[in-house]
């Protein structure tokens, strides 16, 4: 597993560490291939794969740079990118802190339970007092350490004059501990240390699961984010080139743009001609032909090149930056969304607290002493402490997002699931969302020999059309022919020799609408056309949404004609030629009518709408801004995960409501006992663990749901 020891690397002493993301790894074989393949390369000391995060950490001599490593991985058959910081931030610290607190609570719970069981089974006198003291010694530090996540959150809420689920939890835990300490000193009565620590353990288990799941999905999304367009090769005065970060670009600089590059800044073409894919920026599916003097925008992807672009506006002035500003404003409303657990606790906490107060007053009036009345009031608080309530939501959401990950949908957090369940209308972007967003080669006209030659040529190129053609051919099981002397002329295409005949794959000579390549074998010429096809299951996915009472419509930035064709094929209303502002305002119109909108889109131009929508989903091929703005990201070529997401989210909310129901029923059974003053620590412990286990068991049913 570790790389073989290499003497000469040690001499370089200062080894460098580089982390790369490799989204394509899927199995144990990939891990072995990457780790062993990289370790065999001269200058690489060791490589270690993190499969969950789809990352490779490489220890190598400083002679190698990122480019060499990416190239090495490409040779092994994996697309890789040097790792940028994940802009979604890392929840890693939080989930680690929760796990530590969980471990401490587990330790405390088991040991206190050991002592409590002896007390319940009749240990009395000095032994009981000793066990209570021991329990106190264990419980106090455990509560202080493991309770921090709840105390901190409750304190924050109280300071701003609000209440959340953590307020009743904290009060319950603190009162149970305080009462038990008092009883231990007094040397009689009951100690509830086990209940307090058990409550913390179960609640922390829910929180830790929740945080782990969030870290996992965010790492998954982070691995999808590309580095495209974040830097540019800039032509220096001396004719050399240097790589400059997008934010450091200045107007007047000249960027070199090769095919496949994304533009990092707005500019004017100085030299060269080619075509640009604007689909991320405007939603337009057909490439735009540009030549010297054309104005180009950041975010566009060059399909052919090379071109020299003089920067006219950089970073904060670009069209993209304007969209980012719109997004910031649009995202405000969503942050005000109140999650179901907090809505429940707003009803629950006052009810419980007034019940406890009534119990105290009632027993006082009935003539019990203030001490006994207080003990009973606290018992009411302990027994109603929302252990099951606290688990009701995270348990169901964790199981649901686990089930969705298996179907190719990464949901960012629980709040996203809650909002997804509420949507009643879906708005789809066209390019890249309903369609695949990349040209699909029509290879049906090619014969067997043509396929073999075309594959041999297309494989040799990084041009988007070549790659799409190679993928399509490989998908149909074609094998490359023996083509020799393959050369690639930038902007012209590929040429080679096959069985003594000249063969070529390149631009058609006459201009054709849409995208096409010309395959030449000797004198024979064939035109291969490319079209951006619908996702294969788009119609079924929309039908499934309609089944759930969600109407769909298309809102695209593409031209009327292209949008109409798709709208007709899918039989849904459509709006074409919408600018980012138009998308946003249409969405806000719908929301002001009380509709809950699900926005599904991939482009930079969809960003503001994604941020403003009640819930939003982006495909894994989407631009970084869209993936960051969206609540969920689906991977793969199918659109069905979108429909499944809503179905699963709704099922999840049904289970959550059932869980709340179960917790309330449990309390209704237990509260009379507490009010009657007969709740012993044993009853409290059973009530607490019993209700928690039932809630968790009920949530696990979500994992077994068939689609």
């Amino acid at each position, binding site marked *: 597993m570790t790389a073989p020891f290499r003497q000469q690397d040690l001499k370089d002493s200062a080894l460098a560490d580089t982390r790369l993301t490799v989204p394509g790894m899927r199995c144990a074989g990939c891990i072995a291939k990457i780790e062993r393949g990289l370790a065999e390369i001269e200058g690489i000391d060791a490589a270690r794969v993190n499969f969950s995060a789809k990352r490779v950490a490489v220890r190598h001599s400083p002679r190698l740079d990122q480019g060499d490593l990416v190239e090495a991985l490409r040779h092994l058959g994996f697309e890789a990118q040097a790792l940028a910081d994940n802009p979604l931030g890392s929840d890693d610290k939080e989930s680690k802190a929760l796990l530590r607190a969980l471990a401490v609570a587990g*330790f405390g719970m088991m040991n206190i339970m050991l002592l409590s069981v002896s007390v319940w089974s009749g240990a009395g006198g000095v032994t009981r007092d000793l066990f209570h003291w021991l329990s106190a010694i264990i419980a106090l530090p455990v509560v202080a350490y493991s309770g921090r996540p709840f105390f901190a959150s409750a304190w924050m809420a109280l300071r701003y004059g609000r209440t959340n689920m953590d307020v009743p939890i904290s009060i319950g835990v603190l009162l149970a501990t305080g009462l038990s300490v008092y009883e231990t000193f007094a040397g009689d009565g009951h100690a509830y240390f086990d209940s307090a620590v058990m409550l913390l353990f179960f609640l922390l288990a829910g929180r830790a699961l929740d945080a782990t799941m969030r870290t996992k999905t965010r790492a998954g999304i982070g691995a999808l984010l590309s580095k495209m367009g974040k830097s540019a090769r800039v032509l220096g005065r001396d004719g050399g080139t240097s790589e400059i970060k997008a934010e450091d670009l200045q107007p007047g600089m000249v960027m070199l743009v090769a095919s496949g590059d994304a533009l990092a800044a707005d500019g004017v073409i100085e030299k060269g001609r080619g075509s640009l894919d604007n689909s991320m920026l405007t939603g337009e599916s057909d490439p735009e032909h540009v030549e010297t003097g054309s104005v180009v925008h950041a975010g566009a992807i060059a399909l052919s090149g090379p071109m020299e672009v003089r920067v006219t506006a950089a970073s904060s002035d670009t069209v993209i930056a304007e969209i980012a500003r719109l997004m910031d404003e649009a995202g405000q409303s969503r942050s005000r969304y109140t999650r179901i657990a907090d809505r429940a606790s707003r009803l629950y906490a006052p009810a419980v607290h007034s019940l406890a107060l009534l119990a105290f007053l009632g027993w006082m009036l009935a003539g019990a002493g203030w001490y006994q009345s207080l003990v009973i009031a606290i018992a009411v608080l302990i027994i109603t402490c929302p252990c099951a309530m606290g688990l009701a939501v995270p348990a169901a959401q964790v199981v649901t997002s686990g089930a969705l990950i298996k179907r190719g949908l990464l949901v960012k957090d629980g709040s996203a699931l809650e909002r997804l369940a509420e949507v009643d209308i879906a708005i789809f972007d066209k390019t890249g969302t309903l369609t695949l967003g990349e040209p699909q080669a029509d290879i049906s006209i090619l014969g067997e020999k043509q396929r073999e030659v075309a594959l041999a040529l297309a494989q040799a190129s990084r041009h988007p059309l070549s790659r799409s053609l190679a993928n399509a051919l490989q998908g149909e099981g074609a094998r490359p022919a023996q083509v020799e002397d393959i050369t690639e002329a930038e902007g012209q295409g590929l040429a080679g020799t096959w069985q003594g005949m000249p063969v070529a794959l390149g631009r058609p000579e006459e201009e054709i609408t849409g995208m096409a390549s010309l395959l030449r074998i000797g004198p024979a010429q064939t035109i291969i056309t490319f079209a951006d096809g619908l996702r294969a299951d788009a119609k079924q996915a929309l039908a499934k949404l309609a089944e759930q009472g969600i109407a769909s419509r298309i809102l695209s930035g593409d031209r009327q004609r292209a949008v109409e064709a798709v709208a007709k094929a899918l039989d849904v209303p459509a709006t074409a030629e919408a600018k980012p502002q138009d998308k946003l305002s249409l969405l806000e119109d719908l929301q002001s009518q009380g509709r809950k909108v699900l926005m599904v889109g991939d482009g930079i131009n969809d960003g503001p709408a994604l941020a403003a929508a009640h819930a939003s989903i982006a495909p894994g091929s989407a631009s970084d801004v869209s993936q960051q703005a969206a609540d969920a990201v689906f991977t793969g070529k199918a659109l069905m995960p979108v429909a499944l997401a809503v179905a699963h989210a709704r099922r999840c909310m049904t289970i959550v409501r059932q869980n709340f129901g179960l917790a309330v029923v449990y309390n209704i059974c237990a509260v009379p006992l507490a009010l009657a003053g007969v709740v012993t620590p044993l009853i409290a412990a059973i009530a607490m663990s019993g209700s928690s286990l039932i809630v968790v068991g009920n949530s696990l049913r979500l994992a077994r749901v068939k689609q």
Partner: protein
Amino acid sequence: MSGLLVLIPIALGLGLLGLAMFFWAMRDGQFEDLDGAAQRILIDEEEEE
């Protein structure tokens, strides 16, 4: 009673040992890549010495 004086410290000590081991494992990064750990068991051991 005298048995308890021996047994309780042992029980607590074992529990603390387990807790300490968990903390060590977490600091050591053993929970960083749980999916990977599940996959790695399938890799054939054909390591060159």
